[in-house]
C-alpha cells in the first residue's frame, strides 16, 4: 500500500515538474497582432461577422481569412483603422454601410419575456418580466442578436434616419 502510494506520488511530482518546465521552455508566443486588432474591435461579441466573438474575428482578420471590413458595427472607421494597422489596402466602397440600425420594440406585441434583454451584448434593452421592453438608442449597436430571441417578433431592426447633423456633402469627384 505504502509503496504504491509513494511511487505514484513521486511519479506525479516528476512528471508535473517536467510538464511545467516544458510549458515554459516550449512556449509558443500568441500572435500580438491578433491582440492589437482585438483591442480595436467593439468588443461586444455580437457575432454578426460569423466568428465566435471579437477575439475570433480578430484572429481571422490577422490571419487573412476575413476581410478587414467584416465587422458591421465597427463600420468604415474600424475597417480603416484595422487596415492601417495591418497595412492592407481596402475598398471602402464595398463596405455595406447599410447605415446604422437600431432595435425597435413594437410595444403592442411585446409580452415582456426578457429574452432579448439577456441576448443584448451592451445592455441596451430595458424592462422586467411582463413589462413592455424598451431600447436605449444611445446604447444599441444594431447587432440584431435580440431579433431572433423574440418569440412574438416584437423587436426588429430599423435604419437610423439621416439627420442634418449627420449629413455629409456629396463627393464632387464621384458626382
Amino acid at each position, binding site marked *: 500500500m505504502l509503496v504504491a502510494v509513494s511511487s505514484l506520488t513521486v511519479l506525479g511530482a516528476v512528471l508535473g515538474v517536467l510538464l511545467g518546465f516544458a510549458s515554459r521552455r516550449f512556449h509558443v508566443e500568441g500572435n500580438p497582432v491578433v491582440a492589437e486588432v482585438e483591442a480595436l474591435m467593439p468588443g461586444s461579441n455580437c457575432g454578426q461577422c460569423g466568428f465566435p466573438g471579437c477575439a475570433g474575428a480578430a484572429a481571422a482578420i490577422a490571419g487573412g481569412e476575413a476581410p478587414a471590413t467584416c465587422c458591421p458595427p465597427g463600420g468604415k*472607421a474600424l475597417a480603416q483603422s484595422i487596415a492601417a494597422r495591418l497595412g492592407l489596402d481596402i475598398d471602402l466602397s464595398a463596405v455595406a454601410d447599410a447605415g446604422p440600425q437600431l432595435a425597435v420594440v413594437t410595444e403592442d406585441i411585446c409580452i415582456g419575456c426578457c429574452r432579448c434583454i439577456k441576448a443584448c451584448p451592451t445592455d441596451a434593452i430595458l424592462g422586467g418580466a411582463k413589462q413592455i421592453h424598451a431600447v436605449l438608442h444611445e446604447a444599441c449597436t444594431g447587432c440584431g442578436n435580440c431579433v431572433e430571441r423574440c418569440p412574438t417578433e416584437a423587436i426588429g431592426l430599423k435604419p437610423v434616419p439621416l439627420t442634418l447633423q449627420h449629413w455629409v456633402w456629396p463627393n464632387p469627384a464621384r458626382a
Partner: protein
Amino acid sequence: MGFLDKIFRPLTRSEPWGVHPDERKRPASETPIRRLPPPPLLYLPLSQHVGAAAEPIVRIGQKVLKGECVATAKGNISAPVHAPTSGEIVAIGPITAPHPSRLEMMAITLRSDMEDRWAPLEGLADPLARAPEELARRVAEAGIVGLGGATFPASVKLGLGHRSRIRTLILNGSECEPYLSCDDRLMRERAGGVIRGAVLMRHATGAREVRIGIEDNKPEAIAAMRAAVDGHADVQVCVVPARYPMGSDRQLIIELTGIEVPAESRAADVGVLVHNVGTAFAIHQAIDLGRPLVSRLMTLNGEALAQPGNYEVLVGTLVEDLLAFAGGVRGEPARLVMGGPMMGLLLPSAKVPVVKGCSGILALSATEVARDEPGPCIRCGSCTRACPVGLLPLEMNARIANAALDAAVALGLHDCIGCGCCAWVCPSRIPLVQAFNHAKGELAAHERDKKRTDATRRMAEARSERLEREAREKAEAAARRAAERKAQKAREAAESAASNSEGAPA
C-alpha cells in the same frame, strides 16, 4: 533681427490672398430697407443656431404675442426661439429644412393673426452700470446668434470675454460676399443702433477698444458710421480693402490687428472677439428695448428677381412669400441660394423658411450660374495664391480624390475656412472647396463612428462585469443558504438528541 525683418518683409510677404468677384451689389444696395408685413404662416425651426436644438414650451392651439418665447435653449450652447408675430401655434413637427440635403427638421408653425401685437417687453435701464453677466444673460434670453451666418449663440461668445481677456472687439461690417448689401444698408440707416450695440458689447466683454471693419466699397456706410461714432473715443471705424473673403473673422483680425489666429485655436485665445454688425444691432434691441431676435435684414437679389432690395423679414417667413413680396421672380430661377453666392446654400425649393442666420436670398438666372465641366488640374497654382489661409488646395484635392483623408489633414484641411476662393479661381473649374467640404464631413463621421465604437466597448465591458458580479453574488448567496441549512440541521439534530436523551430515562 527686427531690422532685417523690415527690409525683407516686402519680399517675403506672399501675394495678396483672396479674390475679387464681380460685386453685383447694386441696385439692391441703393434701395432703402423695406419692412415685410407678417405672412399668414411662419415656420420656426428649433435649431437655427450652432449647438443643441431648442425645446418647445408651447402647445398646439396656444395664442402667443410677438416676442414671446416659444422654445427655450437646451444646454450650454443653444438659443431660444421667439414668436416673430402674434398668432396661434398650429403645429409642431418636421418641415423641409432650408438646406441642400432636402432633409427635414423640427419646427413650430405659427398662424399669424395679422395684428402683429408685441408682448409687453421691458428694456434694461442703464445697462452700462450693470454686471457684464447680466447683459450676457439678456442676450441669451433674446435668442441672439451670430447674424453674419455662423449662427453661434452670441451670449456664449460674450461670456468668453472674461475668461480669456479680450482686448479688442471687432465689429465685422466688411460684407465681402457679392450680391449682399444688408449690412451695408444697416450701417447706413441704423448706424446709431449698431454703435450702441458695440458699446454694450464692449461693456459685456470687458474689451478695451472696438474696431469696426468696413470694406472701402461702402463709402456711404463708412461716412454714416463715422458720424455715429462721434463721441465714443474707444470705438474706431477702420476701412479695409474690398477683397473676398475679408468678412472671414481670421482674415479681418489680421487686417485690423496684425495678429494671426493660430491653427486649432479661437480668436478669443489671442484676445480678439469678432461679431457681425447685425448682431450688434440685435443686441442693442435686446438690451435697450427688451426685444428678442424675431426679424433680421436680408438682401433679395439676383437677375431673376423683379425688385431686388433689402428687406426686414420676420424669422420663419417662407422664401416663397418673401419672393412674392419682392415682386416675384421672372420665369423659373435657375438657382435659389440662401446666403451669398460664394458660401451660400442651394435651396431645394422656395417652400422653406428663412432662419436667423440667413443674410440673403438670391434668385439667380441661367446666365448667372453658367457652369463649365471640370477639366484636369494643370498645376497653375492659382488656388494656392488665392487661398486666404495659405493652403495648397490642389494637393489637398489630389489626396481627397484618392480617399487619403489623413494626408489631406496633414496638409491643413482643418484650417480650410471653406470660402471657395480656390474653386472660384480654378481655370479648370475643379470643384475644390466642394471636395474639402465633403472630406470634412467624412472626417467628422469617422470621429463619430470611433466614439461610438469606444462607447460600445465600454458597455460590453460593463456588461461582462455585471454578469460576473451577478454570478459571484449568486454563488455567495447559495453558499450562505447552504450554511444556514446545515446550521439548521445541526440545531434540529441537537434538539432531537436532547429530547431523545430527556425521554430516554422515562
